[in-house]
């Protein structure tokens, strides 16, 4: 790992360990929510940033992970984490397998639309049929047992569980991207035809990326269900898919760190725009600020916040060796 990556991880770890000690429960919950979104963003980063597959239906895997967790949690007794979490991941990954297998036959904007369609399908199944409990959502009546007497409930417990999950996912994706598989994905993003010419069966690589991405989104969904104790069909809506896409663009495509930064940035922006202290009565129109930020950031910062440093330096005409190297996925 490069020094900057290690540095990033250490800073992140220290913030995350330090903050709950000094802040209110509200802030702790907010951090938990943001970390869940960071995991969600990382899952999409694998698809969009590394493999070049613009998926507009990521909310489906997130939602399926969350709903599986709720539906399979016992009403009165406690369920075991070791059973519930893998189940949620499996459900999300299974749907990703189906969606991927079918969508990867299309290209370009059709691919974007088909992934959207599959997410909408999942949304309507949950929204309209008795399977998902209907439009009002369903309660999580019991929290899972981690082992022995330790139950996954309470702000702090869920917070640290989420933080650990975030680091595990980061570690996993980091290893993945420096592996042969990860390099192949980047190659597919840059020029698929060339990869095929070199003998890579790109379809299977893309499908594998899809399934892994779906599984990670499922983890995020599981954590979300645990945190709120309540899920409803809106978590599968295409707005959620749009939001997570926004996060990885804000942070910077092609970097795993970018996804995390993007998630935190989005969450901070949301809090700022919704804050009545700054915006007074306009705080209820916070989407306006968000929309403008998105437009400006895509227009002016196409490489996201992560690329801001490079862009600034380029703007100031300070040439650094980094620029000449070809794009690599960094942590």
């Amino acid at each position, binding site marked *: 790992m490069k020094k900057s990556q290690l540095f990033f991880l250490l800073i992140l770890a220290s*913030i995350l360990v330090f903050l709950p000690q000094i802040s209110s429960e509200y802030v702790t919950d907010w951090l938990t929510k943001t970390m869940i979104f960071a995991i969600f963003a990382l899952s999409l980063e694998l698809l969009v940033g590394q493999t070049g597959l613009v998926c507009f239906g990521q909310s489906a895997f997130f939602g399926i992970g969350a709903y599986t967790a709720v539906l399979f949690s016992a009403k009165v007794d406690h369920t075991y984490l070791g059973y519930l979490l893998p189940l949620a991941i499996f459900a999300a990954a299974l749907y990703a397998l189906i969606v991927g297998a079918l969508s990867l036959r299309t290209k370009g904007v059709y691919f974007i639309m088909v992934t959207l369609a599959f997410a909408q399908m999942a949304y309507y199944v949950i929204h309209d049929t008795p399977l998902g409990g209907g439009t*009002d959502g369903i309660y999580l009546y019991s929290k899972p047992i981690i082992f022995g007497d330790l139950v996954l409930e309470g702000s702090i417990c869920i917070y640290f569980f989420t933080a650990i999950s975030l680091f595990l996912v980061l570690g996993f994706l980091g290893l993945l991207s420096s592996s042969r598989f990860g390099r192949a994905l980047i190659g597919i993003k840059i020029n698929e035809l060339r990869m095929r010419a070199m003998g890579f069966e790109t379809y299977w690589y893309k499908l594998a990326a899809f399934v892994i991405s779906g599984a990670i989104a499922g983890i995020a969904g599981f954590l979300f269900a645990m945190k709120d104790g309540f899920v409803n069909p809106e978590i599968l809506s295409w707005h959620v898919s749009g939001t997570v896409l926004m996060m990885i663009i804000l942070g910077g495509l092609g970097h795993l760190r970018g996804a995390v930064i993007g998630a*935190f940035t989005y969450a901070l922006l949301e809090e700022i725009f919704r804050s009545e202290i700054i915006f007074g009565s306009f705080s209820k129109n916070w989407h306006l600020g968000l929309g403008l930020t998105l437009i400006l950031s895509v227009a002016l910062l196409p490489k996201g916040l992560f690329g801001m440093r490079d862009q600034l330096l380029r703007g100031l005409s300070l040439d650094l060796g980094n620029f000449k190297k070809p794009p690599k996925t960094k942590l």
Partner: protein
Amino acid sequence: MKLLKIGMCLLSIFFTETLVFAQSNTQLKIGFMLPYSGTFAALGNAIENGFTLYIKENGGKLAGREIVYIKVDDESDPSKATDNVNKLIKRDNVDVIIGTVHSGVAMAMAKVAKDTGTTLIIPNAGADAITGPMCAKNIFRSSFTNGQPGYAMGEVAAKKNHKTAITLTWKYAAGEESVKGFKDSFEKGGGKVIKDLTLPFPNVEFQALLTEIAAAKPDIVYSFVAGAGAVKLVKDYAAAGLNKTIPLYGPGFLTDGLLEALGDSAKGMLTTLHYADGLNTKRDKEFRLSYAKTFRLQPDVYAVQGYDAAQMLAIGLKASQGDVSRKDDFAKAIRSATIDSPRGPFTISKAHNPIQDFYLREVIGKENKSVGIASKSLADAARGCNM
């Protein structure tokens, strides 16, 4: 590094917000989580009006504590509900939460209230689960359970010897529970529901379903929709000419507060509700006069529910001497009280839901006039509540 600094700066905004809302002990913070936009906006406003009216009548104080309000627009969106109510409880540190209209949103609120122990008084949402498996010592309802008005209407329909009915509602908890209430009493009385038609919330394209109703030719139609959706339904129903041959029955939400917008299309409609116009009791007349003077509007059932939520809060606070943390005293006082409501006196059940009379109302002119009692002292089933 820059990012880190910026991040810390921004995070400190949270802390500031938490500090700014640091409470002074003599103030009682009430958090309104109501729909201030969308299809239920008028209902949210009416509830707030009713509630603040009672507080105003008591000099702006309850149990000696000055009342301060914090408002959040829940947009009738269950997906934002948990975040919104968490903000009220954990960031703004409210003492009591009043809300809401939409059952799905209320369900999310009830979960958080149950987990955190914050006092919650629901001035409308009738989801069965809230006084069912989600019931709690600190959760109260000043309105109704979704099945109640439907049950009352079913009894009326059966007594009038109608044999077949089609139900029409939005596909969400409130709609399903209302229809179930109707079905229970209608079928017990010898009728049969031949079809259940639904529309996703808050869609108002009733046309295709009205066509189906016309084709199936039932004796009556029972429908539950509310707010702007109710206006559309009743108007479309009349425009399709169906009101001449197949009477439209429903809970009072179809017409309450909406007669101005409905005009002639609602003429003669029969509905059941725990409130009506022209009740002619002293309490109701006082309330209506006071409301009309303060807000220059006629009150409706939503205003009454808001008003009674304030009454319940007052009773509880009096017993616990203004201290919301004394939950047992608070709950005991409300449970044993008879609330002197403009709708008529009512008590609450063990599951904290009103046990009340349901009036049969007919739309005469610009009023939902009470033409008798449809169901006396109707309680809710409260299935699954272990309190």
